[in-house]
């Protein structure tokens, strides 16, 4: 199965990888910067590694140092390959994605966003504003 979604672009670039879906708003504060693994107790993704994944969440939230956490993860080679948000609410995460040089897209209604599932192969083309999802 294969489908395409049209998205708005927050940070340009192209990336392809495996989907990691977070149903709640996501912040990189919950990721251990030395392992790339979500380790906040009670977090729905606890134990998951964000590295090299295509991170999918309703929107990014976080703290004012979100940008630096993303940059630190980038320096450690632990960042996800791209970020897909349902809606675009957190200014700093956009700045963080641009700073870290990874694609970030948004503009998917909850029903569209929920079409993407954990493990799907996702190609984010943030130059054209297209997300391509394929599932075996």
């Amino acid at each position, binding site marked *: 199965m294969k489908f395409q979604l049209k998205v*708005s*672009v*927050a*940070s*340009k670039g192209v990336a392809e990888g495996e989907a990691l879906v977070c149903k709640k*708003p996501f912040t990189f*504060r*919950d990721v251990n910067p030395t392992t790339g693994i979500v*380790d*906040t*107790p009670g977090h729905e993704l606890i134990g998951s590694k964000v590295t090299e994944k295509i991170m999918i969440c309703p*929107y990014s*939230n976080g*703290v*004012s*140092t*979100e*940008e*630096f956490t993303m*940059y*630190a993860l980038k*320096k450690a080679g632990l960042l996800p390959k791209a970020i897909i948000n349902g809606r*675009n*609410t*957190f*200014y*700093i995460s*956009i*700045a*963080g994605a*641009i*700073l870290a040089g990874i694609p*970030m897209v948004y503009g998917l209604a909850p029903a569209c966003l929920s079409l993407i599932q954990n493990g799907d192969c996702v190609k984010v083309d943030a130059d054209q504003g297209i997300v391509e999802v394929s599932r075996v």
Partner: protein
Amino acid sequence: MVHLNNQEERMLNGERGSAVQKAMELLVRMGEANDAQRMVDVTNAHILSVEIADIFFEVTYGMLANAKVKIPTTTNAITINSVERARQMGIPKDIIDAQWPGICRLKELHNRASMIPAYTCHPHSLKDLKMGEYVAFTEFNVVPLANAWFGVRTNLHGQTDTLASAITGKAPECGLHLTENRWGKVLIEVDKEFGIEDIDSAFYGALGYWAGQVCVDRIPVFVGLPKNMTCRAAEYLGVGPLVRGSVGMFHVLGVTPEAPTLEAAFGSRRPEEKFVFGKKELKMVYDELNTATKPEIDMVCLGCPHCSLQELIAIAQLIDGKKVSKNVRLWIATGEINYMLAERMGVITCIEKAGGFVNSNICAGTFFLLRFTDSLGVKVVANNGLTLCGLVPRGTRDKVGVHFGSLEQCVNAAITGRWEEK
């Protein structure tokens, strides 16, 4: 598509140097990502400088190179003010050694770029803010207070785009710059069951936190708060919607400048939702924020955000003639000007005689508690600030228990070594 005027085009074309060009490129990209139509002139900026100094230096230098800021730009609190002081506070040598060189480089960079080395998370009093003007601020408590209390217009900016605004004097017009995005969406009524004696700094923090939970990304309009509430109270109130939600703006009916009437606060629209904040809700917030399971405390942090002069005076009055428990560290942080005034008033001597540490320029403790709890040996911390309270449990992965309450409760806990419920 962001429309640029001639001046902005010239910046983008590199006529004002490569740093300005790079900055304008970023602002245009941020503008595109936020559907901005044009750039606005920003008159003032505030940037971060805390956390891992090396990374801050790298990012800041990457943005600034040798450029100077075009508009007054203040800097947020740092982690260590002097090596000697850090040693006195009991910060382990390896942390000082790791942090200090980066801080020195960062400070040098700030000076070279002609920034105002304020090193405070309450920079508003150093700024000449005029209602309606555009500014570019970072930091959780700085942004909501600027928008709500002073009526200036800023989004919750990141470091790089704030730096870009600082060296160009521009920001893409979007979000909270636009009047229609500043109107309230949710009405929150403070229950009349609360008496004036119930409403202290912790109450404002708890109310804000709860509002963040129910509003998420919608602007709250608070009704029923005392008309004589202070700027400091508004600061505590404004942090919550950001710690718990993602809103950098709020209104207090009859108090904040954009909410003289409900009609003005809601832009003549009906609230999407209405809530009442009563004793049940207050208890719920206190239960959630008080994660410590035992009353014995190791540390009290006050000044997150930086203490006002009035708070320093209040702490001194509470602690005068008493001693901080030998098992407890009492760390108090404030801005340099408040520190100097408090020193002249004898307030600093009074607090330090009792065994507390009053520090200017540095972060009250959030940074150390987030990163170095093990080295400091802190297991339970008491505080009256929501930023620290909201972040510590998340950042320290259950290593530190938190007690959250009023300034009085915190100072008493520092003296007795035990947290007492109200």
